[in-house]
């Protein structure tokens, strides 16, 4: 039987694209959310300081 390398390449290529895209989605989403958290935390830190009475 013929080897059909193009089919092998298509299967592995497709898997590579799908898995890499999902990994990229997870990494980007996590970074966005982590940065958002940091901004929120820093923001609340600023308002805490602003609320503190000056000596």
């Amino acid at each position, binding site marked *: 039987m013929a080897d059909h390398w193009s089919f092998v390449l298509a*299967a592995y290529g497709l898997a590579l694209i799908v898995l890499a895209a999902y990994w990229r989605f997870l990494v980007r989403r996590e970074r966005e959310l*982590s940065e958002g*958290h940091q901004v929120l935390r820093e923001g609340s830190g600023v308002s805490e300081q602003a609320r503190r009475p000056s000596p």
Partner: protein
Amino acid sequence: MSSLLGGVTLAGLVAGLVLGFGIAPREATQGNVQRIMYLHVPSVWVAYLAFAVVLVASIVYLVRRAESADRLAHASAEVGVLFTGLTIATGSIWGKPTWGTWWTWDARLTTVSILFVMYLGYLLLRGMIEDRERGARFAAVLGIVAAFNIPLVHFSVYWWRTLHQPPSLMKPGPGTMPGVIVTALLVNFAAFTLLYAYFVTRRARVLRLEAEAEA
């Protein structure tokens, strides 16, 4: 922790590719197209594993109402759908040169498609219900019901006359495959299991961050 798991997963995937393409021999009947097996079979294994985790996590959620169990079920279902999709696509690509068709309504292919649609519905259900607690409860029930399809998929090749071959590895009794092919397959099983753990860990973390951002 996540980067360590990612590194080990990547090393496992590379080892799987080296074994599948460099060490395992060309199959006598099908030729090199049989090497799709090292991708197709571990993908369906991950799908089974993912949906079994959804089942257990859904039961835990319904009993204890632990949000971490709900996040695990959600993350695992998403990764399971991804790998079921890959199983169907790679099976179709493998089917064309060996069976002469991209698709046939054979028992195995039909049951795995139903599995895919059921868990796709599970994810859609989660997205449709705004009340988080209610959505988690409904999804947990669906996660338990849909899991009954897993044995149906696995045993379909025994229960009905199908074009799809019966399992070569996940079956009772002595194996019929040469040791080197079994080794290559087992390494890919391990690598894909690590990939599953890596994806689920990261997805569950994203879900936690999303919940915290909404609160």
